[in-house]
């Protein structure tokens, strides 16, 4: 391949990246992210996104072209990122002649200004071309650097971007610690990092990164050579610090970030529940929101005085077991009809169930029971005994934390039990599992029931937190959210679910501009994940093995295709 590089490759990649860059602009991403500066007044996240596209185009073109001499790589890289930047300029020129905004909502004057750096059409276009070429040269230099140096530089750059983007998080956190105030004043300007701040972070992290990469093995050796007693002490000490940190988190982070944490906790609970059904037992359930809704509505109906039922339980804690139990029962009940189904049909039927539950809660028929579109209101607070507390997001955090710890504990214990192994056997091959004496009916129903009960628990806490629930809060998107986070985290892997919840629920809340593109990026992430890394970010060992097998099997299957192309002239 090296001897005969495809010469049209840089052009092809340039064209493709150009189209992608234009679509990113038309999606409104550059505009939305353009408001957030990474380094104040120097570069915004929106521009960084555009530059990253150019850089990626050049990098890919260099890699694929097989060019090795520096001059050649610079030429190839600059060519393909230049082509990409020409597309962006073409968009601006086209937009200035015709009214693109009639069709594309985001093709507006502010976008064109961003794309021309507010320098007018001609000067702006030239600047954009220069940026294209510079990105190509940078990509060529990156390729030319030794791998180790590249690693040294890359990590600090990522940290500068992260700290710049997460300015709100850092400043809000530090507001609670007045003695650190001068640090933030130095690091940040009103929007983004200050220039000296960015440089300081870069240099500091470069040094830390260098020492970390050089001395890591020495530190590990030293830890390994400690006597067992002190090693235990170190381990328990770090666990202790972790626990204290978890307990202090709402106080450190303040009101808004506690709200974010609550959301993460909520989705973590649901994710762990769905993980049992999809991850452990391999039953793709697209209607998981139904159990969340059932848990929420059970607790709501039992504790709300507004609907005027005969039985009202004032205490949330008494209603909670009912919520969990009803959800688990519903899980088993909905599981019975789908026992014989697999894969696609199962997914569609569960999706149908989820929608039916929502439509029923919304309809006028059941309005006397669930309140129809007006929802169920005045749901009780989770007060303990006579203790009347004011329930803020910070106090709910502890409820979510307790729930998550309980559910993680149950999940971990179940996973390695006889039942957990039966689930995995069913996931890998139902027929073989049955032949080995596994009771398919009981195994699957237990998976549905247990998964649903976690969802019910999440719903019960959610109902109490919002104090009123409406049918439209339980739509299909929640199922998709939960499914995305367990798939991206790694199906069947409990740490994976935690990572997935933090990345997919926590991150978008920190970056408000993100929220418009949330499902766009979820969708893209699901596709890319399945294409590139189907086992997830934090894969489960067994699952990774299964998928590895499939990749090995795939190779011989491709053979006939090769034969066929060889037969053609």
């Amino acid at each position, binding site marked *: 391949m090296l001897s005969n590089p495809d010469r049209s490759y840089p052009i092809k990649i340039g064209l493709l990246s150009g189209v992608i860059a234009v679509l990113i602009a038309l999606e409104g*991403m550059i505009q939305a992210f353009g408001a957030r500066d990474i380094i104040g007044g120097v570069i915004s996240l929106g521009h960084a996104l555009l530059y990253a596209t150019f850089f990626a185009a050049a990098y890919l073109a260099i890699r694929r072209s097989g060019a090795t001499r520096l001059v050649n790589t610079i030429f190839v890289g600059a060519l393909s990122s230049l082509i990409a930047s020409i597309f962006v300029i073409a968009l601006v020129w086209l937009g200035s002649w015709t009214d693109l905004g009639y069709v594309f909502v985001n093709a507006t004057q502010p976008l064109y200004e961003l794309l021309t750096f507010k320098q007018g059409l001609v000067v702006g276009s030239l600047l954009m071309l220069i940026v294209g070429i510079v990105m190509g040269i940078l990509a060529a230099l990156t390729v030319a650097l030794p791998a180790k140096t590249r690693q040294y530089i890359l990590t600090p750059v990522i940290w500068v971007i992260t700290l710049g983007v997460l300015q709100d998080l850092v400043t809000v956190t530090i507001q609670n610690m007045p003695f650190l105030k001068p640090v933030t004043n130095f690091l940040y300007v009103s929007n983004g990092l200050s220039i000296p701040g960015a440089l300081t972070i870069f240099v500091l992290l470069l040094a830390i990164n260098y020492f970390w990469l050089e001395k890591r093995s020495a530190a590990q050796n030293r830890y390994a050579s400690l006597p067992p007693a002190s090693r235990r002490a170190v381990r328990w000490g770090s666990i202790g610090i972790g626990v204290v940190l978890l307990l202090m988190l709402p106080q450190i982070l303040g009101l808004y970030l506690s709200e974010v944490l609550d959301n993460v906790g909520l989705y973590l609970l649901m994710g762990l529940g769905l993980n049992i059904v999809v991850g452990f037992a391999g039953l793709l359930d697209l209607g998981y929101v139904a159990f969340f809704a059932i848990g929420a509505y059970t607790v709501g109906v039992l504790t709300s005085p507004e609907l005027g039922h005969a039985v009202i339980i004032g205490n949330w804690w008494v209603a909670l077991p009912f919520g969990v139990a009803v959800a688990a029962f519903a899980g088993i009940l909905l599981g019975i*009809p789908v026992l014989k189904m697999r894969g696609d049909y199962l997914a*569609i039927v569960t999706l149908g*169930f989820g929608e039916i539950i929502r439509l029923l809660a919304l309809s006028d028929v059941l309005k006397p029971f669930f309140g129809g579109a007006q929802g169920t209101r005045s749901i009780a607070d989770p007060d303990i005994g006579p203790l009347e507390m004011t329930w803020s997001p910070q106090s709910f955090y502890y409820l979510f934390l307790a729930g998550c710890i309980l559910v993680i504990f149950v999940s971990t214990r179940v996973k390695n039990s006889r039942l957990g192994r039966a689930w995995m056997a069913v996931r890998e091959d139902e027929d073989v599992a049955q032949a080995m004496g596994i009771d398919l009916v009981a195994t699957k129903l237990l998976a549905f029931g247990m998964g649903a009960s976690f969802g019910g628990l999440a719903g019960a806490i959610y109902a109490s937190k919002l104090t009123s629930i409406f049918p439209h809060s339980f739509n299909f998107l929640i199922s998709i959210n939960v499914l995305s986070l367990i798939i991206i985290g790694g199906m069947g892997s409990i740490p994976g679910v935690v990572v997935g919840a933090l990345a997919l629920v926590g991150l978008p809340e920190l970056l408000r501009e993100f929220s418009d593109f949330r499902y766009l990026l979820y*969708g893209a992430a699901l596709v890319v994940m399945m294409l590139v890394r189907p086992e997830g970010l934090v894969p489960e060992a067994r699952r990774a093995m299964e*998928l590895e097998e499939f990749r090995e099997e795939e190779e011989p299957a491709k053979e006939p295709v090769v034969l066929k192309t060889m037969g053609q002239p």
Partner: protein
Amino acid sequence: MRRFSERLNLTDVIMFIIGALILLLVVVGSAATLYAGKYTTRQWLDLVVFGVALGSIYALIALGYTLVYGILRMINFAHSEVFMAGPFTAYFLADAMGKSGFLDQNLFVGLLIIFAVSMTVSTIVAILLERIAYRPLRFAPRLVPLITAIGASFFLQYFFRGLYGPNIKVYPEIAFLKNVIRIGDLNIQYLQVLVIAAAALMMIGLQIFIQRSRTGKAMRAVAEDKQTAALMGIDIDQIIVITFVIGGALAGAAGVLYALMFKQVNFIMGFIPGIKAFTAAVLGGIGNVPGAMVGGMFLGIIESIGPTLFLDGLNVPAPQQLKDAIAFTLLVLVLIFRPSGILGEKLAQKKA
């Protein structure tokens, strides 16, 4: 007798009871509605005509599901977004032509252009979908392409939302299509005639294409056995692309018909019709082309007259609210009790 009781197990009994209860509900509800006699023959006929028009649209979309399932053995979850992409894009053209008066003067040409644009866009989306999301995963475990399809579906929805905006767009009113033909008690709008005729034309064309043409024959061969078809010199990749092209074009056409009937388009418009069309495909037996047409008609009529017929007699308030619930219940029931569909293949048990 003894063997029968041995074969019986608890889950089957529960399923039987659920099925019987729903059947009872339907029968009692229908009887009560008809006995009360609140509706005239004319009203029933109106509902049936509306149902047939709606059903032809479902049938067109269902063909996309069925064709792809027949060949790849996977549910193309993103097909509902292929259906949305065409009419959502063609809206801008329709709107411009409606405002300038072109559409009222040259109705035929105008509609033809709208159809052409919508079908082209849908087809392009379908081709890209196959190329990027499905082709690399053709040999992956079943769950993997299914998740990809769900991801692609969401990506496409929100991609078009970002491109054209989240608002509902309203297709222009075409005065001519609102005229009514009267035959006794039967009233049919020109629009409904257009929808039914266009759908029928395309379905007949597809049937002829699949049965008579060389490519159609190759498609059937690939659906039957991929390996053998490849050995016979059929280019599998090409046939799969053609399948997606046909499915996409039909979905694009169905999208315009849907937009003309309901006037509104937005990025989420594909979701519910998509699930219903899938129901139609399963009803008729997935992988079966005439089945998809029959299933579509059946579902359209049930959805149209169902809420009134089944629920009105039971004094359910606002039965129209539950028309989607009826369609979903039908979907669930069909998948549980007869996954092979009305005209289903015998193979279905193995595949489902």
